[in-house]
């Protein structure tokens, strides 16, 4: 963003809201004038953390309202509309209710481990925000191993979920925890592979570096690696426990899964972190595959963090949409989908990315011509892979269509059933099948 800094005198000043980093830099420099340098680091860190907390807290409250309202619209309902204008205060009322509720703990619960998870679950939930770049210089910690940090932090959450499920001494919770762990172990593989594709192709492990690569090459990764983006989206929604992969808290099977026994604000914390994670994962999908804070020059006129939030909102809406529409897969189906379809697909594109990257670098091809060609090739490959996996990995019992026949004049028992089944004309009604 060098051209941005040179545009006029106000750019880079503390009141330039397009890049909130300026304000922080001002404060750091001011402290460095009189104080020790460790104080500056601590103040910077605290400012970032407080900024994140100050943003997520209210955002979560709004998100609850948004999600309920959107889902309600899918379901032809009004959604919350009583508390406050348009029901906007409903989340506040819910939060107050949760805080005032009695906190119950099963007598046979493992007390220490039972109390910790609602608190611990916040740690990865907050840490993960630290590496999300809101702008060219706007992330709390622009690590050069940002991608790995993201995976490492999100991987620790499953430990907390396991602690919650195990310590409750409830079979639903235990089943939920086991499912969560099994799913997390499985779905981290396609997630890692999907990110590896981007890392290989852009040649950096810094999250901001990946965005800058997209900016530099004028292309967003979803065009280059559509299937990888799709797999990442699904794997992320599986890690987030959202339908169609919410098996670890499947309401109709195991009540609420690992947080069945948590009541009051303890449940509220789980709920809040889940929503926050959904938002931050939407943000990362937007960052990795949709260009993050960059958008073909629009970022010079609109603050970059607004662009990122808009993209995040779009992905978040997509997540709500899938949640409102799709039924849930079974545990074994989710596992076989992961290992038989998602992992091979992402592995394929890791190889593809490696080959294309090598070609770009060693042959020195012009990226403005080579990248569109590669995008077309990859889109074709993705479609082919989807069709191939639909054929190969599809369960055998879905190959034959389900049929409904009309009995007509045949009414009776087994004999009538036989003659209806033996009737040669086309069945009235047929769904599914190859």
């Amino acid at each position, binding site marked *: 963003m060098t051209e941005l800094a040179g545009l006029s005198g106000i750019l880079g000043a503390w009141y330039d809201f397009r890049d909130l980093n300026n304000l922080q830099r001002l404060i750091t420099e001011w402290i460095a004038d009189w104080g020790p340098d460790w104080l500056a680091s601590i103040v910077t860190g605290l400012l970032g953390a407080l900024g994140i907390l100050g943003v997520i807290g209210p955002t979560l409250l709004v998100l609850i309202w948004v999600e309920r309202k959107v889902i309600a619209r899918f379901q032809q309902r009004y959604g919350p509309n009583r508390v406050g204008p348009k029901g906007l205060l409903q989340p506040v009322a819910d939060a107050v209710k949760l805080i005032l509720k009695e906190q119950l703990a099963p007598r046979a619960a493992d007390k220490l481990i039972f109390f910790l998870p609602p608190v611990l679950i916040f740690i990865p939930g907050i840490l993960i925000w630290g590496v999300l770049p809101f702008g060219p210089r706007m992330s709390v910690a622009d690590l050069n191993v940002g991608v790995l940090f993201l995976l490492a932090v999100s991987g620790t959450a499953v430990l907390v979920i396991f602690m919650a499920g195990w310590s409750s001494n409830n079979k639903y919770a235990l089943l939920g925890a086991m499912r969560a762990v099994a799913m997390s172990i499985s779905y981290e593989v396609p997630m890692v592979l999907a990110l590896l594709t981007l890392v290989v192709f852009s040649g950096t492990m810094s999250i901001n570096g990946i965005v800058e690569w997209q900016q530099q090459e004028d292309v967003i990764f979803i065009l280059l690696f559509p299937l990888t983006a799709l797999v990442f989206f699904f794997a992320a929604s599986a890690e987030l426990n959202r339908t169609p992969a919410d098996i670890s808290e499947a309401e109709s099977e195991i009540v609420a899964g690992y947080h069945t026994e948590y009541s009051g604000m303890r449940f509220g914390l789980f709920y809040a972190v889940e929503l926050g994670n959904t938002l931050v994962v939407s943000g990362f999908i937007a960052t990795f595959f949709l260009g993050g804070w960059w958008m073909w020059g629009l970022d010079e006129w609109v603050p970059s963090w607004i662009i990122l939030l808009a993209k995040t909102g779009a992905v978040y809406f997509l997540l709500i949409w899938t949640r409102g529409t799709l039924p849930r897969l079974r545990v074994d189906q989710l596992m076989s989908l992961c290992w038989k379809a998602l992992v091979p697909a992402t592995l394929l594109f890791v190889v593809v990315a490696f080959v294309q990257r090598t070609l770009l670098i060693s042959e020195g091809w012009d990226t403005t011509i080579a990248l569109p060609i590669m995008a077309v090739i990859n889109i074709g490959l993705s479609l082919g892979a989807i069709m191939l996996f639909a054929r190969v990995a599809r369960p055998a019992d879905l190959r034959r269509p389900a049929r409904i026949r009309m009995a007509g004049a045949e009414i*009776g028992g087994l004999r*009538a059933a036989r003659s209806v089944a033996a009737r040669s004309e086309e069945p009235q009604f047929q769904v599914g099948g190859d």
Partner: protein
Amino acid sequence: MTTRYDAEAAAALVNDAISGAACVDDGDLYLDSTRLVDAVRVLRDGGESDLVFLCNLTAVDYERHFEVVYHLQSLDLNHILTVKARLHDHEDPALPSLTGLFHGAHLQEREVYDLFGIRFDGHPNLQRMFLWDGFPGYPLRKNFLQMPGDVRAGLPGFPHESEENAWPVPGSVPQRPYHPNDPAPPSDVAAVEGEEAS
């Protein structure tokens, strides 16, 4: 339209196979309670009768005796037959179970056992179904006029709410609220293990 299968024809069919196992009284087919299973098997497997579908199984208390009523239906031939068995022992009535012939008899026989106290010999899982184990008496019997003794039906209130609400109810083994972890209903529960506030 479903026709009524002629009781006389059915009786003849049964008596051909097992002589003297069936008779007709007032237009209804009565089967000998000791040879009930064989007789119903004849009706079920006979090509003419083909009574493969056990529509309904219930009992009636005639104060001196019980009648167990079976409605058997042929789906293909579309006729229905009412079969009855009379039980003269009003205190401890027992009848062979039809579960070997009709899988659908399982729950219906349990229901009759629960509410009438008619034992079905050979039923694999003859337990009370709607009422709890140890419920005093069989409510659909005509001589069941009120809950015997001090026993009141239902929960008197929350357990240990007051002195009157002693738990368990004297003279009965009640069901208690279940936590999903409980492996099996306990037979003697002195206190409710619920959850404690923290």
